[in-house]
């Protein structure tokens, strides 16, 4: 095997679609929330996307922010994003609010989707504040598929809650619950008290809400709850906490090896006589995928999706490494 360990690609295996779009409309959707409508300045069709997708706005060299698409998937000429001015903004939402006007140009990357709407006969949507944005497109999708759905939408006060007008026609399915009109916390028990196996729960909002929903969904069937965190949306450089040296236990073969800093998992296990497949040695082709039984992989490939990385149950052993002292693989 000639592949050098920890190969650094000269250029990434995949590049996401990027385009300079124009702000064709800017509307105040609620207190502190603007909705920007983006379109290609030459009228080109924009890439297709599905409910729950988001795009990056490349606001400056150092500032990239992710926003859920909140328009209609049927509109291939325009994208819409809703942006809340965060008083603690580190620059992103502040810059959007202050500088992106009608006619402004903004560089956009994507779309991609880490929060896809899976098919289900029934949905319970739960939104907190600006977390309504991805759920709006899901509602359109659920409605079109003829699914039974309900939305519980919490916020500070009505004036701060975007898109109430769009939700008006679904008044039987939507519960709007501003904090200043209720006693105590959002009424999660009213919609989550009884676990149902015909329902998927989709939630987007601030951390406190997500934690409470996760807690309330504990008795629900596995995989019933799908959430998107705001915090994950800030692009931070990944922590450099991959270990220099770690152990790999090959459970099926009953062999444990140590992977040093200058060699790949693939090289070390192959040398130990383990039967593994490998091909590109750059993390692009997916041939060397192994199931992870224990441990915390440090993914360096360009095959796995964000959701798969987060799940951590598979690894491309030609380039990826480990964050835990020990990695147990099903090989």
């Amino acid at each position, binding site marked *: 095997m000639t592949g050098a360990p920890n190969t650094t690609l000269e*250029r990434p*295996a*995949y*590049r*996401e*679609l990027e385009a300079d779009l124009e702000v064709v409309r800017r509307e105040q959707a609620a207190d502190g929330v603007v909705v920007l409508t983006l379109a290609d300045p030459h009228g080109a*069709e924009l*890439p*297709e*996307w*599905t409910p729950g*997708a988001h795009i990056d706005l490349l606001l400056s060299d150092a500032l990239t922010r992710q926003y859920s698409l909140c328009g*209609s*998937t*049927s509109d*291939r000429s325009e994208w819409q994003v809703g942006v809340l001015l965060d008083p603690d903004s580190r620059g992103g939402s502040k810059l959007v609010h202050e500088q992106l006007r009608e006619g402004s140009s903004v560089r956009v990357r*994507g*779309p*991609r*989707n880490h929060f*896809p*709407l*899976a*098919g*289900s*006969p029934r949905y319970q949507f739960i939104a907190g504040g600006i977390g309504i944005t991805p759920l709006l497109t899901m509602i*359109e*999708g659920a*409605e*079109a*598929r*003829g699914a*039974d759905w309900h939305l519980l939408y919490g916020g500070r006060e009505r004036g701060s809650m975007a898109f109430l007008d769009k939700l008006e026609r679904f008044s039987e399915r939507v519960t709007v619950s501003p904090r200043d009109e209720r006693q105590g916390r959002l009424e999660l028990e009213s919609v989550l008290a009884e676990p149902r196996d*015909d329902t*998927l729960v989709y939630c987007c909002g601030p951390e406190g809400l997500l934690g409470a929903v996760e807690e309330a969904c504990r008795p629900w069937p596995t*995989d019933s709850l*799908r959430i998107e965190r705001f915090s994950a949306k800030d692009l931070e450089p990944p922590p450099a906490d991959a270990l220099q040296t770690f152990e790999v236990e090959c459970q099926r073969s009953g062999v444990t090896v140590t992977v040093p800093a200058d060699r790949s998992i693939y090289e070390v296990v192959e040398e130990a006589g383990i039967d593994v*497949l490998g*091909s*590109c040695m*750059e993390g*692009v*082709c*997916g*041939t060397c*995928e192994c199931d992870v039984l224990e441990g915390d992989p440090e993914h360096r490939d360009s*095959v*796995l*999706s964000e*959701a*798969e990385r987060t799940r951590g149950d*598979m690894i491309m052993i030609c380039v990826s490494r480990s964050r835990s002292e020990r990695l147990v693989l099903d090989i």
Partner: protein
Amino acid sequence: MTPNYPFNCWYVAATSDEVGQALLARRLLGIPVVLYRQSSGDVVALEDRCVHRAYPLSEGRLDGDRLICGYHGFVYEADGRCVEVPSQENVPHGACVRTFSVHEEAPFVWIWLGDPGAAALRRPPRTPWFGDPRWASTGDTLSVQANYMLLHEHYLDLTNVFVMHPEAVPPGIDVLPALDEVEVSEMSVSYSRALPPARLADWEAEATGLSRETEFARREHGTFVSPALHVQSYAIDAGGGHSYEHVRVQGFTPESPTATHVFLRIARNYATDRSVVADHLRGMFHAMATRDVEVLETVQRRLAEAGEPRRDINVKADRAAVRARRVAEAMVAEEKGSAARHGRTLIASPSRAARTANAQSQLECVVRRAARRGRGNRR
């Protein structure tokens, strides 16, 4: 093999010239469909099955815009409603066959076979080369006994041309340069590569009329637009900002998990009024497609043989194909209602749309009221 294709996607059902006032029967995503053109010019797509005894409606005949079953003479309107039963006065209440949304943008008739309401949330991909006077096109329709993803993967990795179509490669090029870039979005994958200057292959010289003594650079660009459509452009740079461009547009529509309809069109931006060029290109691409089909059908037969399931070995040149497979898998998984997981195989269980479609087929209207009543119990 169970379906590995999404139902919630626009597929090409036929080319515009295939659909007229005669009944066209075609199996699409496993569903028998009958297509015809109304006197208004609009195309109709119905499930090809009479509500009475499951006889194919395509075996019947048209009376104006109405379709008459060739078994007991049940009469249907273009919206699927049964309006006449010859042997009795009244029509069974609410009897109707399933209809499918259709969108025609010549030369393609697109069809939506998934969740009926979701059709409005998607648009068939645009194919701007057709109907534009700067372009002319030719092509044909093929039936391939192979899974549709084998076709996508084949055309997303053209490194096979040296082995399969050496005569089509410009002389002096012995290996395709690596892909410059694989560009992805949520639903699409595209790649591009530049070829170093080389003299013309025979087919290029004959089609373009350019000098055989001159070296030309070429640019290749391919896109997995959706599970239903592959578009590839091949442009010969003639200098001065002028290029001789060919766009191979292929609609891949699964007939079943092991068979695919291929709607092949070759568009060109030169010699648009010269039928001899059209004939030459059609012949050349048809011959290439025929050889491709032979290989893919052989692969499909080998895949169908009994034995341990095994993993594919991929190579770097597959990276666009690997990505495209994942897009399709994610769409299938989302329809099924499970979180997308990168599968080791292409196999997935029937989608909810497929199950719904079966359940809905012939009695859709009859059960509508009952379904509405029992909505809460429906799973």
